[in-house]
């Protein structure tokens, strides 16, 4: 066993930390409050190569491993989870999905500009009536010979407005149930693609979330990923990796809240001493640190399994569920440690708490992760 990071992994972690502290931190509160998309910040993130950091260099990516990705996601999420969710969707869902299952033409046309960060991607699976139950797709991709006719509505789409490349999951053969589903590459500016209003969210307010409507959108057959009927399998396999991204995001929210709590508790005095010297606070810090360490180890194990080409679906589900749940617990305790200051915006922890809540919901709720985990235990 070797728990040491390589020099490159440490360099990437430091680069992500420097970027987060220097570029994201100065206006993170303002962007959260007014739900402003981080246009310039994402541009810089792309220039540094973080949006395509795991994609093979032959497709213009950074060629970094999943462990590096976890380290970078944690550092960026400590400061701004709205930015790290953009990074997660681009890396783990869109780029990975295209690189692993797309054909060479698709990679040349769509993956390369995404990996260079010139374009942003979005992953369109959830529907008004199909969130966790992804088999119940109502969006249809009717086979019209040399193209699919796409109709339906997708909900809760991260990057919906900022992305130009969509990966859309839609039903072609309802009688085949989930085996009739396809994954299609759709360009946002094609006729028939319409954005719903911007969702006014509790947290992650700086990332753009919309519903997307498709009305008779013609999608060339060349834009189908994999064989006919591969779409559900594509979505599930891609989400296995996506869970590592969101688990790392939740880890960053928790470790960021812990760092802020340690700092605050060493400065704030009550009853004649810094509050970290009171056992009530010290033991909270201890509990938080144990959870963060466990969470980090789960994320890194999932990443290591993926990097060494071993099955990682189970551990990534464990990481997603555990990290999201402890992110909620740790950020809530961070607000408690900060007392009244924790309830106001300038101390950051209330934002981390609002953001942590979403990690228990999106890309598979904690309950869905438990289905995945328990089924693998008893099968």
């Amino acid at each position, binding site marked *: 066993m070797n728990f040491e990071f390589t*020099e*490159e992994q440490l*360099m990437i972690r430091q680069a992500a930390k420097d*970027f987060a502290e220097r570029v994201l931190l100065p206006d993170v509160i303002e962007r959260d409050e007014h739900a402003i998309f981080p246009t310039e910040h994402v541009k810089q993130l792309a*220039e*540094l190569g973080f949006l395509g950091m795991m994609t093979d260099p032959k497709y213009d990516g*950074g060629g*970094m491993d999943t462990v590096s990705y976890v380290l970078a996601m944690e550092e960026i999420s400590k400061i701004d989870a709205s930015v790290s969710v953009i990074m997660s969707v681009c890396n783990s869902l869109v780029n990975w999905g295209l690189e692993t299952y797309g054909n060479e033409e698709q990679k040349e046309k769509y993956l390369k500009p995404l990996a260079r960060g010139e374009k942003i991607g979005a992953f369109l699976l959830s529907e008004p009536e199909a969130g966790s139950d992804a088999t119940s797709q109502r969006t249809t991709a009717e086979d019209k010979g040399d193209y699919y006719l796409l109709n339906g509505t997708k909900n809760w789409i991260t990057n919906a407005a900022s992305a130009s490349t969509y990966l859309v999951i839609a039903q072609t053969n309802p009688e085949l149930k989930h085996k009739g589903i396809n994954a299609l590459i759709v360009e946002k500016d094609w006729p028939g693609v319409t954005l719903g209003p911007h969702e006014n969210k509790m947290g992650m307010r700086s990332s753009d979330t919309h519903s997307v409507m498709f009305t008779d959108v013609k999608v060339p057959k060349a834009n189908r990923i994999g064989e006919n009927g591969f779409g559900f399998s594509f979505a599930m396999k891609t989400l296995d990796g996506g869970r590592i991204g969101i688990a790392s995001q939740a880890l960053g929210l928790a470790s960021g809240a812990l760092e802020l709590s340690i700092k605050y508790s060493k400065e704030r005095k009550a009853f004649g001493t810094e509050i970290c010297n009171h056992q009530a606070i010290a033991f909270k810090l201890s509990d938080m640190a144990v959870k963060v360490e466990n969470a980090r180890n789960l994320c890194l194990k999932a990443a290591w399994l993926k990097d060494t080409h071993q099955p990682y679906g189970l551990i990534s589900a464990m990481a997603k569920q555990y990290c999201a749940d402890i992110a909620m617990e740790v950020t809530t305790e961070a607000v408690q440690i900060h007392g009244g200051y924790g309830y106001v915006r300038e101390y950051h922890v209330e934002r981390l708490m609002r953001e942590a809540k979403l990690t228990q919901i999106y890309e598979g709720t904690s309950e869905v992760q438990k289905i995945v985990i328990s089924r693998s235990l008893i099968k």
Partner: protein
Amino acid sequence: MKILVCLGNVPDTTTKIRFNSDMTRFDVTGVQWVINPWDELALTRAIELKEQSGGKIEKVTVVNVGKIDSEPTIRKALAIGADDAVRIDADAADSYFIAAQIAEAVKSEKFDIIFAGIESSDYNAASVGGMLAEFLDIPSVSSVSSVEITNDEMILKREIEGGKETLTIPTPFVAIIQKGICINPRIPAMRGIMMARTKPLTVVPPADIQLMTEMSVFELPPAKGTCKMVDAEDTDKLVDLLHNEAKAI
């Protein structure tokens, strides 16, 4: 045209400073090492100048005096954008030793512009740049906060009391770099980190240089005294304490 940037490997500025029991050696346990902040700014400006030069500046080289454990710091400089690196395989004993070693190692390559940070954030000797220029027998300009190249002319700005002065200088020269030379140090990009593996890092043996100083003992500053709170209305007591106890007035 070629630029050389002198690179110090220093403890991260948030490091808790500890010494061994007889206070003769800095305890490096758990220390995170970084590029000396002034050198990192100098490196960033050197890379910017190269990028803006339209090919006239052919390369940026970094040089470090240090043992193998300074290589992660050197490779970060390569990841940021330096083209190659030289490590002189010796402990960085003092400013004279460092300057003499660098001069010996680089004199044959004839760099046109040499950047040295104004000081290092650990020992703060602020003398390597000046000494290096002397060893190489070329001019040096201290406290440089701007370097521009316009029509092949080197235009430097220096911080002086109450303002700045602008001067031009022929190459070769040493510019001793102050803050302000660039806005922020550059963050290495993924591509740079990946390419750093393949860039040349040459290790050279140290020249035979005799040390001029010997470190005797370190001292930590005295611990801060406790803070006394005085009631805002009680100015007499405040004056009394400042006068009789702190002897500040």
